[in-house]
């Protein structure tokens, strides 16, 4: 019975399956436009199509970036984690809204600048947030927090969802997710987002990990503090 679903559990299959989800949703939404009775409904469906397509495009872009990591095209520079988190939350708020989810922000860091590649860090935080949106329980928020932790600045995204499978937990504890893993426990993103985040964190020589709570999971990235002053 289970084999009918999971017989082809390769990384490529998982990626294909995950990318099919937003594509098929966009198609369905577009087809459903003819049933909308008024302009407001049409606009709402249009906005949902845009939000869903942006998510899919970003995932494809991230996968493309992974293929280019070996060329070392992504330079490290001082970045303000709050600015990155603001960009990500601004990009995702509509998708969260369509999915009846809330995204909260909590900035507590005193040190302002970290060393990272802004594009890759943006993707890491984006995928953490998307992961939290998919796994968060009904009526429960996802939380993005930034705080100092010794000589590092931590960006952490917490969800209130089901426990993460041990297989993925072990891979993340080791600091590297080898390939996206399909899991019936947390199928919303099937590990693709965590795989992307892991690869980018590893490239930036940042610590990537998770904290298991009894009512959810926090994923984090620890970034080295930049010596450069921030006037932001």
């Amino acid at each position, binding site marked *: *019975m289970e084999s*009918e679903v999971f017989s082809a559990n390769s990384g490529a299959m998982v990626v294909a399956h995950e990318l099919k989800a937003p594509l098929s*949703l966009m198609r*369905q939404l577009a087809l459903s436009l003819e049933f909308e009775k008024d302009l407001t409904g049409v606009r709402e469906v249009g906005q949902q199509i845009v939000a869903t397509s942006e998510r899919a495009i970003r995932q494809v872009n991230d996968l493309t970036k992974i293929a280019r990591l070996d060329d070392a095209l992504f330079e490290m520079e001082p970045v303000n984690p709050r600015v990155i988190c603001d960009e990500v939350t601004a990009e995702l708020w509509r998708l969260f809204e369509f999915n009846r989810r809330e995204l909260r922000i909590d900035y507590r860091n005193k040190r302002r600048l970290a060393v990272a590649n802004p594009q890759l860090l943006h993707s890491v935080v984006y995928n953490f947030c998307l992961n939290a949106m*998919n796994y968060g329980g009904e009526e429960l928020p996802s939380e993005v927090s930034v705080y100092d932790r010794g000589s590092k600045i931590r960006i952490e995204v917490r969800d209130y969802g089901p426990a993460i499978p041990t297989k993925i937990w072990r891979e993340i504890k080791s600091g590297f997710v080898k390939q996206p893993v399909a899991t*019936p426990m947390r199928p919303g993103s099937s590990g693709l987002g965590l795989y992307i985040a892991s690869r980018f964190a590893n490239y930036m020589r940042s610590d990537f990990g998770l904290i298991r709570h009894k009512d959810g999971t926090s994923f984090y990235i620890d970034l080295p503090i930049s010596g450069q002053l921030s006037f932001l």
Partner: protein
Amino acid sequence: MIFVIEDDRGWESYYRRILGDSAEYFHDGVAAIAEMDFDEPPALVILDVLLTGPTGFAVLNEMRSYPELMNVPVAIVSSVNLADDIAEKYGVVAVFDKGSMKPAELLEVIERYA
């Protein structure tokens, strides 16, 4: 009442748009079965396959183990490529691929059973 068992938030949002309050929405099969009234079972269950917790097929088998739920019509809507004989094998009224399903096809099933 229609039961929608779907854990993808985007798809849930889509179902809410077309079904509104005529359906109850669940992200996993365990919660859905726990809410099923044996005296007044759902008129139709729209079931995804890759779910949080047990798969759609496990949910289906669990439902079939109760005499009161045995004959509840179930429509599978999934992005998993399933074998052609899956409807017959599992005794479901329809199997839709999310990538090729047309809204009218689903609405037809809903009108017929709910």
